[in-house]
């Protein structure tokens, strides 16, 4: 359903908007002809969607090659970058948020909350520039570009991806840590935690068996929604590091008004988001007995 709504929403807007205010009448007509946009909207959508689903994304106006040839590798690159960022941010932010939640009001809590808040708030390109200045330029520890030389080993590739992924980590950390923290605090205040303490369990046992089990659930959902943001962030980071990912593709397509490519890129982003939320829903119900048993009750 959502995919359908999304499909209705996007190409229509983009198509009309791209053509509308800029091109001369002659150009518009030619484009309309070439793209078949003078056909009824529903037919267009159907045509485009059915092609999209078959993996035929059309031809890039700018490069005159199939869009899928350009977006495929770009998507793979982006997923690599996103994966590196996730590998760092998920454990870091969950551990940070949990510690902050357990030590509510303490110094560690303030450092993690205010620090995380600040990192989240700062635009990713600013963080990235500061990181480049420190680790790339001043200290010279890490490469300042994201693309490893052709045929580089996997560790080297990862090394090249560290700086750009750190910029993404900085933004995501504060957000995920914050949600983790508040759900840990809610769990700590819950009656069942009191029950657990009154059984004579140690703090470690209470936290491990009772607090975390309930507080990590909402965090899963949050992590998934952040996949969406992550790709938005990629747009900026990939441009900054001149990294050939889907964000960079969307960016160049937008600059050059290569709108078939833009549409497809945006659509892919939407699909990734939907897949991520779907996976999160599944994980959530696997870990949450209340939902798991609803089906048979």
């Amino acid at each position: 359903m959502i995919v359908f709504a999304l499909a209705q929403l996007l190409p229509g807007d983009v198509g009309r908007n791209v053509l509308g205010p800029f091109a001369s009448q002659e150009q518009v007509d030619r484009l309309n002809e070439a793209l078949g946009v003078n056909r009824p909207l529903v037919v267009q959508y159907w045509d485009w969607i059915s092609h999209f689903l078959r993996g035929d994304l059309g031809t890039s106006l700018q490069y005159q090659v199939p869009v899928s040839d350009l977006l495929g590798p770009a998507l793979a690159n982006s997923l690599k970058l996103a994966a590196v960022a996730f590998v760092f941010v998920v454990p870091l932010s969950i551990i940070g948020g949990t510690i902050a939640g357990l030590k509510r009001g303490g110094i560690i809590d303030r450092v993690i909350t205010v620090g995380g808040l600040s990192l989240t708030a700062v635009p990713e390109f600013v963080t990235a520039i500061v990181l480049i200045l420190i680790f790339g330029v001043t200290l010279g520890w890490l490469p300042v570009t994201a693309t490893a030389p052709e045929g580089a080993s996997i560790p080297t590739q990862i090394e090249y991806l560290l700086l750009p992924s750190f910029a993404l980590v900085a933004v995501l950390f504060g957000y995920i840590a914050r949600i983790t923290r508040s759900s840990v605090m809610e769990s700590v205040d819950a009656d069942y935690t009191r029950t657990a303490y009154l059984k004579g369990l140690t703090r470690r046992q209470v936290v491990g068996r009772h607090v975390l089990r309930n507080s990590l659930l909402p965090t899963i959902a949050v992590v998934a929604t952040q996949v969406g943001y992550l790709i938005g962030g990629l747009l900026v980071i990939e441009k900054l590091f001149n990294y050939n990912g889907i964000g960079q593709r969307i960016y160049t397509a937008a600059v050059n008004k290569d709108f078939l490519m833009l549409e497809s890129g945006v659509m892919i982003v939407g699909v990734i988001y939907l897949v991520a939320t779907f996976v999160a829903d599944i994980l959530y119900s696997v870990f949450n007995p209340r939902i798991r048993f609803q089906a048979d009750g």
Partner: protein
Amino acid sequence: MTDVVTADAALEIDALDVVYRVRGRDRQVLRGLTLNVERGEAYGLVGESGCGKSTAALAIIQYLPRNGFVRSGAIRIDGRDVLALSGSELRRHRATAVSMVYQNPGAALNPSVRIGSQVAEVFKVLGVTGSDADDRSRAALETVQIADPGSVMKRYPHQLSGGMQQRVIIAMALATDPALLILDEPTTGLDATVEAEVLDLVAGLQSELKTSVLFISHNLGIIQKMCDRVGVLYAGRLVEEGDTESLLNDPRHPYTVGLLRCVPRGGVRKDHGRLDTIPGFMPNVGDDLPGCVFASRCTLAEDRCRTEEPDAHVVGLAHLSRCHFHDRAQTLPREFSADLVLPDVDRSGAPLLRFDDLGKVFAQGGHDVHALVGVSAAIWPGETLGLVGESGSGKTTLARTLLGIIAPTSGAVMFDGRDLAGTLGKRSASDLRELQIVFQNPDSALNRRHQVRRILRRALRKLAGLTGKQADARMLELMHSVRLSERYVSARPSQLSGGLKQRLAIARAFAGDPKLVVCDEPTSALDVSVQAAILNLLVELQAEKRVSYLFISHDLGVVRYVSDRIAVLYLGRLMELGPSETIYDGPHHPYTEALLSAVPTIDGEARERIKLDGDIPSASNPPTGCVFHTRCPRRIGAICDDVEPPLIDVEENHLMRCHIPLDQLRALQSDRTSLKSTITTT
């Protein structure tokens, strides 16, 4: 208060001061609390909300909120000073010596862990492992009369009913045979019949295991049933303590006297007179109270009471009272009781409201839930119809359907000789004006952002068509009629106490001179002393304006006080309808009988408890035949399982839905002890 500190006491609290630090200021919650719970004894701690009873429990288990701490005093459990325990000692102590059961069992169990492992944890802490822990968990669940512990252990908390959840918690609490068991309002929020089961269970286990119990409750009836001794807590101080028997029958502190008087009891009805109330408000937590804590509300108070803290006077065998004038506490003046002229209800004329064959079906997750099934009744002008039933009985659905908030699926409503539309949008202005409601919780019913003036003037404008000066004048009249002082006109609800808020809500309902007011549990969110004043007000308004009430309550004492006739609902069906005397005195429907016997009262007429088996069935899957047959203690045979009994006139003005003829019910119910034997002969 007890001077003798015996080494045997399970719990000794000595001069305990607990304070909460709020915004840099210490606010005292408990003031020199001293009490002992002897071994094997059940001690009741009773008091209204805000008196500090839960704080006392949290102090005993060392689980005060982060801003609360013990300023002075001592707490010993089993002779051991709990305030001096180290971290590991405290864990050991919690694992073995003290347990607690509190309100809202659903929240007390971890929602994502199976019952089995939650119970087993209690034993694992003590080093029991694997299948031993499982066996002991099973045994613990059997102790609390869970029929199929094996399958319960595999479930998650949300798959159990509230009563079952509370049993599991009691099982965990008693599993290690603690020296002290604290029960903090363990049945508040449970239905009457479920509450009765849980209380019976606790009482049985307590006498069997000789566990020492500290039972905390606001309900004197429960305390009377459950406890050997009682302490009355007011504003953080124990004002009276004694044997349950002597304290309830011979109270020696004006607060206890007042508290006992404001509960409608002994079959008192509105035409017998008004209820007593306790004027004023409980002091705020942390207020400086140099003299007697009750002085500001005590009609016996003299200057001395306001300056000099009374000692604990011995007024009888193990009976103490902190009152300078304990010997005349019972002379506490009664409320001035003007003669109320209640309207005569003339049932020969046309009823004000009549509803026929009302049905309401909700679609819920693919199932049809029959919330109301063919309910018919009528209310005459000036009459109060009481509506009782447990959760799922449909009493709130009935109220909301009559009001037009939800549309009935079938049936018709006639009001004052005209048909009422199903939904509010189709009802006329006079329909709206003449049919109003007083909700249960005034915090929810009043817009917290609007001032009293705005709330009332808007109601007057919409319901009475009054604006400007006229509205102002009428507003002041309304406020006067509900005894709400004029100086609150620019107050917001948050500035008013619970009782005053409910007065405001009543004033709003009366803005358009309604003919019928639905009162949906109007006093159940209030403390008993406030409840009495609100009931008095409702009765006065009825006497004055000849208004009719549909009065919903789970408190049978309250319903009996205000109602002329009573309707009993079960699973959306009307089981019985009749004059309140008949409903209470019997012969009554077996369900009514069980409901009445479930309620602990302070009247001392210890009734034989009618035990109901199992939980209330779900309204989405009601039992066949008579819907009550699955729990009915007087089931006569297959006919009950297969055939739904019709609702018939069993005598004049008395409708009942039961296969057992009235005479037989009369015989059965006059001799409660022979319950089992008589049933088989039928």
